[in-house]
């Protein structure tokens, strides 16, 4: 019975037509926002139908700025989690410092858009428009990823994780002390823009592109190589694969996309400083959302981010002080009991690690051999 329901849900959710329909609905969503604006300016209505529609839109505001902002935040989280999954899930290198690329992208974009507080900041590196500045932020993050990845990606397993955690902490301090770049305690202010639908569209399109890109990468030889590195790095090397090159490439792609999202977020936020741009909670979000959805799968980060974001918005907004404690505990629970995440439900064979594995016991005795991504170092 349960299996049939799962199969039915699966056939709906992973149907291409369903996904395209969802995307089209999301694309149409801001039209209600615009319609409400249009109704406000309308002086006299021509038909009773139009009048009742306009009254509904103005009084209820089904799609107001806050709703669009919520969705934008969710899309951003989905992109971040998907990017994290590219290194963490596919190549098995758990990155506890991925937020560093977000921060670098945010600062890169802000500086390129001309918000530097430093008089000697070169003129040709400021006053760029949003699109080129966002791309610039991505380039900054990518260059940093190549440099840092060349060193840290040679480290295995936990060494890499800690080195990246160190990268985040060290980079945050480095940017903080260079106050002519970071603006010191004042932070940086970007050109103010209050256009919710614009960011909604940018983040939605970016999300669709990023998830499609990762889905495509997964099917290519490159994606297969990453999986091979995750499963058996020494073996992959013996087959003649240049593992370091592949790891750095994946890492750089993830970093560049994360940097661009950071840039977009900075523009939307109109203000950044070191503490919010290099916030460690962002790494926690990425890790937790990917783990909940299912690490190493394309759809996992999307599902996990959507679930956690709405949980946070709807449920945990009422327990603001406690929600980070909950999230830490939730991460432990996910890792211990449902290491395959929500996507584990949709696996054909019952490996004992699906969501229903929760009731089966308190971790240790159920003898799960290996986590879903295997053991990166064995």
């Amino acid at each position: 019975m349960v299996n049939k329901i799962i199969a039915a849900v699966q056939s709906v959710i992973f149907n291409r037509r369903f996904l395209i329909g969802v995307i089209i609905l999301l694309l149409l969503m801001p039209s209600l926002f615009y319609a409400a604006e249009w109704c406000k300016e309308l002086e006299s209505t021509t038909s009773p139908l139009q009048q009742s529609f306009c009254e509904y839109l103005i009084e209820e505001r089904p799609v107001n700025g806050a709703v669009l902002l919520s969705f934008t935040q969710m899309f951003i989280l989905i992109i971040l989690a998907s990017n994290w999954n590219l290194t963490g899930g596919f190549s098995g290198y758990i990155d506890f410092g991925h937020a560093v690329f977000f921060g670098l992208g945010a600062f890169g974009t802000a500086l390129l858009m001309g918000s530097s507080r430093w008089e000697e900041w070169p003129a040709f590196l400021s006053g760029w428009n949003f699109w080129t500045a966002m791309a610039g932020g991505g380039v900054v993050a990518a260059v940093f990823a190549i440099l840092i990845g060349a060193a840290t990606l040679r480290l295995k397993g936990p060494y890499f994780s800690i080195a990246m955690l160190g990268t985040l902490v060290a980079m945050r301090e480095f940017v903080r002390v260079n106050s002519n770049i970071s603006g010191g305690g004042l932070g940086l202010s970007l050109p103010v823009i209050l256009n919710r639908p614009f960011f909604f569209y940018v983040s939605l399109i970016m999300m669709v592109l990023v998830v499609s890109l990762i889905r495509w990468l997964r099917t290519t030889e490159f994606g297969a190589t990453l999986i091979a590195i995750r499963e058996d790095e020494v073996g992959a090397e013996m087959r003649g694969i240049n593992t370091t090159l592949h790891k750095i490439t994946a890492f750089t792609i993830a970093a560049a996309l994360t940097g661009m999202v950071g840039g977009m977020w900075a523009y939307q936020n109109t203000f950044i400083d070191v503490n919010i741009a290099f916030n460690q909670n962002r790494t926690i979000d990425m890790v937790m959302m990917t783990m909940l959805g299912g690490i190493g799968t394309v759809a996992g980060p999307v599902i996990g981010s959507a679930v956690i974001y709405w949980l946070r918005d709807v449920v945990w907004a009422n327990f603001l002080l406690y929600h980070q404690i909950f999230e830490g505990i939730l991460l432990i629970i996910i890792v211990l009991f449902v290491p395959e995440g929500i996507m584990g439900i949709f696996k054909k064979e019952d490996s004992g690690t699906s969501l229903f594995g929760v009731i089966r016991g308190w971790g240790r005795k159920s003898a799960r051999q290996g986590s879903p991504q295997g053991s990166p170092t064995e």
Partner: protein
Amino acid sequence: MDFSELLIQTLINGILIGGLYAVMMLGFSVIWGVMGVINLAHGDFLMVGAYMTWVLNKQYGWEPFLALLLVMPAMYLLGWLTQKILINRIIERPHLVALLVTYGLGIAMANTVKLIYTADPRITTTRFSGFWQYGEIVLPITKTLVLVAALIIMVGLFLLLRNTNLGKSIRAAAQNKEAARMVGIEIDRVYAITFGICLALTGAAGMMLSPLGSITPYMGAAWTLKAFAITAMAGLGNIPGALLGGMLLGLVENLLATFVPTVGSHIGITSSFALLVIVLVARPQGLFGGLRAPQEIR
């Protein structure tokens, strides 16, 4: 103060802080060496120890160094419980599981402390403040006492590991778990006690830290990083190496703070990170050897 005196002063400060670093990292490296668990919540346990001291100091007027008598047993109990409830279930799993679980544990602890005591920076006040002065060179009394306490604790740990039956069991469990089990060592019990002892050390380090610098709920990550950097230099569970590595990091940080103008005091954490990556990339077996190759970690 001329250059040579400034240099001597800097070296003294680095060596004095090295004792704290050594005790701080021993908890981390012994847990890693014995159980193969990399405890990302290490810095947060340190923070808990520091806050315990702060509460005893501010609300009950205890002398921080005296608070060790209560902080260490309390942290031992916390470690014993954590091991029994959580860590015991993840030891057999891939190392990734341990990383993620301890990461989540750290987040939960840091935010719990933040909820109770807010995010304001705190500091304890000790009666043993002031300094001894020799010419231009000063020797802060608090830091000297911290080094002495650290040395006493390290000697205690050294003797415990070397001479007692418990220490032998711990070392046996670290070397070969199955063989240790075969000769009748209760591995679960030894692990729980080891975790407790390590957290007691960490709590002691938290106490030593509390009068020296401000403590905040979110300082954990930086300290985990420092512990990892020193472990990379010293190797796992190597007590003399820990002292040497701790002093090396202390020296590097203090030299940077003194001789790099204006920004030096802020980039201490950057230096420990740079040290870590350089050591790991150049010598994956650790600076003095004794770091387990990643392949051997479960």
